[in-house]
C-alpha cells in the first residue's frame, strides 16, 4: 500500500533567510492591529458592551429588511441600533444601547427588548423571536475585566513554564509569538468589525493553545538539535529543526483545517464567529511558530551551551573555585 505523503521526505527550505523582512512585516502588522483596535475599536457584543440584544427571524421572507428596520428602530429613541445579519439571510441580531441609568433599574432593559420586538412585529408579520439577551453595564465591565485577566495570566504562566522547561529565551519567544497571534486576531476583528463577544475570547484561547502546541514542537526539536549538533551555526540549526518538523506541521494544520471547514460552512450560525476566529488562528499560529518564535532565539542569543547538562556547569564552577581553570 502506498501512503499519502504531503511533504517530501527531506526538505531543505531556507525559512530563516527571510527572517528580517518577515519580522518587519509582522511588527508592522502588530502595530497596525493595535492602531486599529485603539482607533476603530472592537465591535463589542452585548457581553462586553452591555445593553439589549434580540435575535429575530423573518419567517416568511427570504431576506431580513435591514434598512427598514434601521429606520423603524432608530425612531424608538435609543440611538442608532446595531443590526447585523445572523446566520440565514432572514435572521438578524439587533442591539440597542440602554439609556443612562436603565441598567440600574430592574426590568428596564428587558422592557426595552420587548419594545423592540413589539415594534418589529407591528410592521412585519411572522417574526420569530429567537433570543433575547440583556447584560447590565456593570456585568459587562466585569466580563471585560475577567476576560482580560484570564488572557494575561494564562499567557504569563505559559511563558514561565516554558522558561523553566527550556531557557528564558524560549519563554520570551513563546510569549512574543502568542502576543503576535492575539494582536493579529484582535486587529482582524477591529478591521472587519466582527462582533467581539465572550465566545471570541474562547476562540482566542483556542488559538493560543494551538499556536503554543506548534511553538513547543518546534522548540523541542531545536533543543534536541542544539544538544546533537554542538558546532552548527544557529540559523542553520533552526532551519534544520523547522524542516524536520515540517511534515508534522503541515499535517496537523491540515487536519485541524479540514475538521473546521465544515463547521464554518454548515455549522450553526452561532458558532460562525468562533470557528472563523480559530481558522484564522491556525494560519497565524503556524506562521508565528516558524517566523516569530524561532528567529527571535538568534537575537536573544541562544547558543549550544544553553542546554549543556547542568552538572557540567556546576562542575566547571567548582573547578573554577578550586582554581583549576
Amino acid at each position: 500500500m502506498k501512503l499519502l505523503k504531503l511533504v517530501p521526505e527531506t526538505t531543505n527550505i531556507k525559512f530563516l533567510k527571510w527572517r528580517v523582512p518577515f519580522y518587519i512585516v509582522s511588527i508592522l502588522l502588530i502595530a497596525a492591529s493595535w492602531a486599529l483596535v485603539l482607533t476603530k475599536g472592537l465591535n463589542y457584543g452585548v457581553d462586553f458592551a452591555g445593553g439589549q440584544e434580540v435575535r429575530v427571524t423573518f419567517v416568511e421572507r427570504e431576506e431580513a429588511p435591514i434598512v427598514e428596520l434601521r429606520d423603524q428602530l432608530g425612531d424608538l429613541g435609543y440611538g442608532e441600533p446595531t443590526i447585523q445579519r445572523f446566520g440565514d439571510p432572514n435572521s438578524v441580531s439587533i442591539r440597542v444601547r440602554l439609556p443612562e441609568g436603565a441598567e440600574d433599574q430592574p426590568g428596564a432593559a428587558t422592557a426595552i427588548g420587548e419594545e423592540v420586538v413589539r415594534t418589529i412585529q407591528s410592521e412585519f408579520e411572522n417574526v420569530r423571536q429567537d433570543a433575547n439577551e440583556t447584560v447590565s453595564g456593570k456585568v459587562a465591565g466585569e466580563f471585560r475585566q475577567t476576560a482580560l485577566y484570564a488572557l494575561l495570566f494564562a499567557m504569563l504562566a505559559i511563558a514561565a513554564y516554558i522558561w523553566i522547561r527550556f531557557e528564558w529565551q524560549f519563554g520570551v519567544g513563546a510569549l512574543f509569538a502568542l502576543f503576535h497571534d492575539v494582536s493579529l486576531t484582535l486587529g482582524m476583528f477591529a478591521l472587519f468589525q466582527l462582533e467581539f463577544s465572550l465566545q471570541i475570547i474562547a476562540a482566542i484561547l483556542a488559538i493560543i493553545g494551538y499556536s503554543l502546541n506548534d511553538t513547543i514542537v518546534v522548540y523541542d526539536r531545536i533543543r534536541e538539535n542544539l544538544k546533537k549538533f554542538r558546532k552548527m551555526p544557529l540559523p542553520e540549526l533552526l532551519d534544520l529543526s523547522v524542516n524536520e518538523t515540517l511534515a508534522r506541521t503541515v499535517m496537523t494544520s491540515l487536519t485541524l483545517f479540514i475538521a473546521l471547514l465544515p463547521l464554518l460552512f454548515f455549522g450553526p450560525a452561532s458558532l460562525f464567529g468562533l470557528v472563523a476566529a480559530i481558522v484564522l488562528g491556525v494560519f497565524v499560529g503556524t506562521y508565528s511558530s516558524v517566523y516569530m518564535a524561532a528567529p527571535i532565539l538568534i537575537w536573544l542569543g541562544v547558543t549550544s551551551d544553553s542546554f549543556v547538562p547542568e552538572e557540567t556547569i556546576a562542575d566547571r564552577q567548582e573547578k573554577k573555585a578550586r582554581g583549576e581553570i
Partner: protein
Amino acid sequence: MLDFPLWKRISLWAVTLVLAVLAVPSILSMTGADRPQWIEDAPHINLGLDLAGGSHILLEADPAQVAEQRLETMEESVIQLMGDADPEIQFSELNTLGGQVSFMLEDAADIDRAREELLPIINGTGLVAEWQLEVIDGRRIVLTQTEQGIDNAVDDAMESATEVVRRRIDALGTREPTIIRQGDNRIVVQVPGLEDPEALKALLGETANLEFKLVSPRRQNEMTEEAARADPLPGTEIVPYAEDTVYAGSVLVVNRLGGISGESLTGAQQGFSPDTNEPVVNIQFDPQGGATFARLSTENVGRRFAIILDDEVISAPNFNEPILGGSAQISGSFTVESANNLAIQLRSGALPVDLTVIEERTVGPDLGRDSIIKGGIAMGIGSLLVILLMIASYGRFGLYSTAALVLNVLMILGIMAFMNTTLTLPGIAGFVLTVGAAVDANVLINERIREERRRGRRVIAAVETGYKEASRAIYDANITNFIAGVLLFLFGSGPVRGFAVVLIIGLFTSVFTAVTLTRMWVAGWLKAKRPSDLTI
C-alpha cells in the same frame, strides 16, 4: 517502553471502556427529543442554554439594603430587650442615623444592665463582634455595624435568598433548573426549556413578606394617610392598602409589635371560600405560630387584624371567633392565578433582600436544537475527513490513531457526564482544540517513527524512539495548556470557564489515548506479527 503486561492491558482497557460507556446516555439524550427514564437517571451531560434553549438570569442583591434592614432589626431588638429587662430599662431618643442605632438611657445607673442585655446580639454567633458598642457621656449608647457583621448578614441573606429562589422555581414545575449562588451577592438562575422568563422574573421580583398584625384598637377603620400622620399613635405604624384591593388609597393603623410573621407559616394553598366561592389562600401555621394566632384571636375577638403582604394590606377581616386549629384563610380580590402565585410565594417564604436582574439571556428552543443538529452534522463530516486523511497518510498507524481519537471523544463526554458538567458553545471550541491536540500528538508520533525508520533504525527501535522522542513535546505542550486551562478556570467567567473545563478534561484523555492506548495496540501488533518493515 513497548512492554505491556496483562494486568496493565486489562486496566487500560477497563478505564477506557468504563469512561466511554458513560458517554452513551449523553449522546442518546442529545439526539433524541424524548428521553427515556433511564437516561434521566444515568449521569449525563446537560446542554448549556445556548445549545438547548432556555433562560439564564443573573440576580444581584444590594448589600446596603441588608445593612439598612439590620439597623431596623436592631432598633426593634433594643425596644424588646430594654422592655424585657427586669426592672424595665427606661430610654429615649432612639434613632437609626448614619448606619448607627443610638439611644439615651433615662438613668445613667442602668448602663451596665443595658450593656449586658445587648451583649448576645452584639457578639452574634461568630468569633468577631457584629456590632460595636460605644457609650457617650455615660448615658448614650451608640451601636455601629461592623464590616464583618454586615458581611455575615449579607452572607446569611444570600444563603436564604438562594433557598427561597430555589423553592419558588421548583414550584413552577420546570425541568432541571440550576440555581447557584455566585460571588458575594449574586445568584445565577438557569432554566432550560423555559422560553418566557417573564413568569420567572415576576415570581422572583416579589418579596412576599407576610405579616399578621392587629389593627390598633384606637383606630379600627380605614383612613387617609394624612389623617393618620396628623395624629400619630406611639407603638403603631401606618400601612397602606394594596392597589388591587377595594380600599386602595386608604391606610390602616396597626400595632407594630405582637403580630405573627410569615416565618411561622408551614403551608399555603390556593382554594375557594366555602361561603362566596371566591378564590382564597388557605394557610397553616407551625405549632408556635398556631399558638400565637390562637392567643391573638382569643384575646381580640371582635377586633380587626390586618393581613400584610410586602408592607401592603391585602385584607383586614375581624376575629369573629378564636381560631384554634392553626390554620386560616386569606381572602382578597384574588383570581385563581393570583391566589396560586401568592400561595407559592408564601410557601417559599420571604426573600430576605430585593434581587435585581442584572443579566438575562433567553434562547429559543428551535434555535438551540437547530444548532445541535447543524453542529453535529458538521462535526461528523469534519471527523470523517480527518479519519480518511489519517488512514491515507499513516496506514495501520493511522487506524490506531483514529480509534484512539474516537475513544478520546467518548472519554471526554463520559467524564463530563460523570462530573455532571454542562456543554456550551465555548465548550465546543474547547472540544475542537483538544481533538486537534490529540490529532497532533498522533501526527507527532507517526512522523517521528517515519523519521527514525528513514535514519535506518530497525522496526522496534524506531517505534520505541518515535514514542519516546515525540512524547517529550506532547507532554510539554499539554502541561502548558493545562496551566493555561487552570488559570482560565480561576480567572475566567461563565463561558470562558466552560471552555477551560473541557480543555482540562480533554488534555488528560488525549494524552492517555494518543500516547498510551496507541502504544499498547502497536506493541500488541509488533509482538504478534514481528514485522520486518513498517508501512508508515
